[in-house]
């Protein structure tokens, strides 16, 4: 581990800055990289070689597709239709919005999903005199659960998929069962602990009347843009083709990153959107943050720090595969609840790789443990996942204040339940595989 002290110090400082949000996350990561470059710990060419361009391309492509889809009015249309379907029934609001949130998060990023769902759910529940907090928290949690199901659903999965070379189909086939069970378990827990808040309203004429007026208001508010059907059709067709190409990756041999950027560029051309304006919608700071983190972890890996952590922390648990899977799952789960799960996943990938070199585990089960832990664990606290932070922020803007502890009161038990579901699934999967 010669010359490792400086990269370790820089990495810890960056991690602290990220955790406590001392500076912008992209600035923190890139400043760390610049310090290492300035002190000649790593050269520019070496640094560039650490960047996983597959991940960056996938993120860039999906962000572009989502930006165009948002402009098409598709999300507004969808959320208004769901609001209409609920007819103000509190349990229907929870279930239908959760299904939409889970499905959208599986195919789009979680932040985009909550940006679409949270305003309408606050409008609907607050207008009905219900407490919007429960619904905001539930949708944030569900977005993290739903996002776990696919390669493109959550940043940790994108990173694992790109760095390890796992396909879209492998993710969905291996993760859909624990995600579906966790989704149902989450809704059941929410219903069980808040039964009195989910009473039907169809015997209350006053409430029914308010809901009808509210739905009309929501239609006026959220559908006040003209929906260009051709534009919407093109956008949905391209998203559909992108998903089809993800699914047929083993036949086409096109990586998800290439598919995403390709379809985004096709969309830019066929919809004739103002590209400059659309590019402003892309979260460049997130892409720069990823770039910086890849370099920081790459340097640690090169200096032998990752190998040291793997040998002295994770490999000390021995070579029992059950114990290894559970350790990766629960450590990822707990750490992701308090630290950003993106840098954590980037750090864990080389560690898991070393663990697998020592004790091979079939069917990529250790990778699924990392994905489930990092994604589900983000629900422990509201700083654990970007979707949580965005949801709480949007609720605050609407006058609904949710404290750190209020969020945890609901989220901790749900996270533990989902991690237990994941543990049982992985243990059974491992038992079946060995």
């Amino acid at each position, binding site marked *: 581990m010669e010359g490792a002290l400086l990269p370790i110090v820089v990495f810890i400082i960056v991690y602290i800055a990220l955790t406590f949000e001392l500076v912008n996350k992209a600035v923190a990561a890139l400043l760390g990289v610049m310090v290492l470059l300035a002190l000649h710990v790593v050269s520019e060419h070496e640094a560039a070689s650490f960047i996983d361009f597959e991940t960056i391309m996938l993120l860039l492509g999906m962000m572009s597709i989502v930006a165009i889809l948002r402009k098409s009015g598709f999300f507004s249309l969808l959320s208004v239709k769901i609001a209409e379907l609920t*007819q103000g029934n509190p349990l229907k609001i929870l279930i239908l919005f959760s299904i939409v949130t889970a499905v959208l998060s599986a195919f789009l990023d979680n932040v985009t999903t909550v940006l679409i769902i949270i305003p309408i759910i606050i409008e609907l529940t607050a*207008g*009905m*005199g219900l407490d919007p907090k429960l619904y905001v928290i539930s949708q944030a949690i569900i977005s993290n659960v739903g996002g776990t199901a696919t390669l493109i659903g959550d940043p940790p999965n994108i990173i694992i998929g790109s760095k390890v070379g796992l396909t879209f189909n492998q993710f969905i086939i291996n993760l859909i069962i624990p995600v579906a069970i966790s989704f149902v378990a989450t809704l059941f827990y929410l219903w069980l602990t808040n039964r009195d808040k989910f009473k039907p309203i*169809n*015997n*209350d*004429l*006053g*409430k*029914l*009347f*308010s*809901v*009808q*007026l*509210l739905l*009309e*208001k929501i239609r*006026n*508010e959220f559908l*006040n843009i003209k929906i260009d059907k051709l534009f919407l059709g093109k956008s949905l067709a391209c998203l559909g083709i992108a998903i089809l190409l993800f699914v047929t990756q083993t036949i086409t041999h096109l990586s998800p990153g290439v598919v995403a950027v390709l379809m985004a560029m096709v969309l830019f051309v066929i919809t004739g959107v103002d590209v400059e304006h659309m590019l402003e919608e892309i979260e460049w700071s997130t892409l720069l943050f990823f770039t910086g983190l890849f370099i920081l972890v790459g340097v640690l890996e090169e200096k032998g720090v990752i190998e040291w952590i793997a040998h002295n922390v994770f490999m000390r648990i021995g070579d029992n595969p059950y114990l290894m899977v559970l350790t990766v799952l629960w450590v990822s789960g707990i750490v992701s609840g308090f630290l950003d799960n993106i840098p954590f996943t980037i750090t864990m990938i080389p560690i898991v790789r070393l663990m697998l070199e020592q004790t091979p585990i079939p069917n990529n089960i250790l990778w699924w443990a990392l994905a489930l832990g990092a994604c589900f664990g983000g629900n422990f606290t509201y700083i654990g996942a970007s979707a949580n932070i965005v949801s709480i922020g949007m609720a605050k803007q609407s006058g609904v204040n949710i404290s750190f502890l209020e969020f945890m009161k609901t989220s901790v038990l749900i996270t533990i339940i989902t991690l237990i579901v994941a543990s049982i699934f992985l243990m059974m999967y491992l038992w079946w595989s060995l």
Partner: protein
Amino acid sequence: MNQTDRENLYKLFRDHGDVLGFVRTTVVALKSFMESIRLLKCTTSEIMPLIFDLIQVIRCSEPKIIPLIHLIEQFETEIQTSADQDIDTIKAQAIQILQQKIDMYQSNVQRVTEHGAQCLKDGDTVVVHMASSVVTNILLKAMETRDISFKVIILQQNLVRAKQLINALSKADIEHVIVPVYNLSHYLEGSNKLLIGAVTVTEDRKIVAPVGTASIVSLCHANNVDVYLFANTLHFSHHGSTTQQIHCELQNMNFEDCAYSMVTYSHDLVNLDMIDHVITEDGEMGKISQSRYLL
């Protein structure tokens, strides 16, 4: 209905009023009433008290939506004849009566629009503030059915309402200019008509109208710009302006280091005497007819 639910409902009425105007809000409210009766699950003995409770709540809205109240009161009288029927019959009757009320109201509105379109002359420059669906339709109707050309000055106060009007006028090729409401003084000389709508015309010769209407009407009145009010007679109240329950709110404000409380009213009160022409479903209403309806 508890107090919080009532306040939420009244706020919903105001929100709709701000975006759609109170003519469309009245129709939306009646349609919502119909839909909620359709969805209601209760016993035969429960339905009538539930309907009467809701009517009572609607009666007390802030501000009072007089056309809605008139129509709902008519509905209340008519539905009582079905009180001893079974639940399905009561529901069907209620929905049918409410649909009749909507049709009647829309017919009145249509007639106001037709009379209103006759008020515009070739070469007019009309000022429009917080255009309701009635005023918008009058402008469109005048352009469509009469071979005249006129110009519209849109006073922008509420962006949503202004946007609706701009889109409608652009589509109909009606010449228009959009100016901030506080810049009206620069356009008074070239204008000859101000078109407004109202929630209510009260017994003591006042009108309840969107915020900002009072100062615009005063300015136009003082500068000899004819003020036209379009309101069908269902908007006429049998009570005075003090009983209209205009919503009043105390807002806590902060500006730099200064914290203060500000009182805001949801609607303006305008003296009817400053209005030169009142157009109803029966055409222009003279002062004598007004006094028959009012005091």
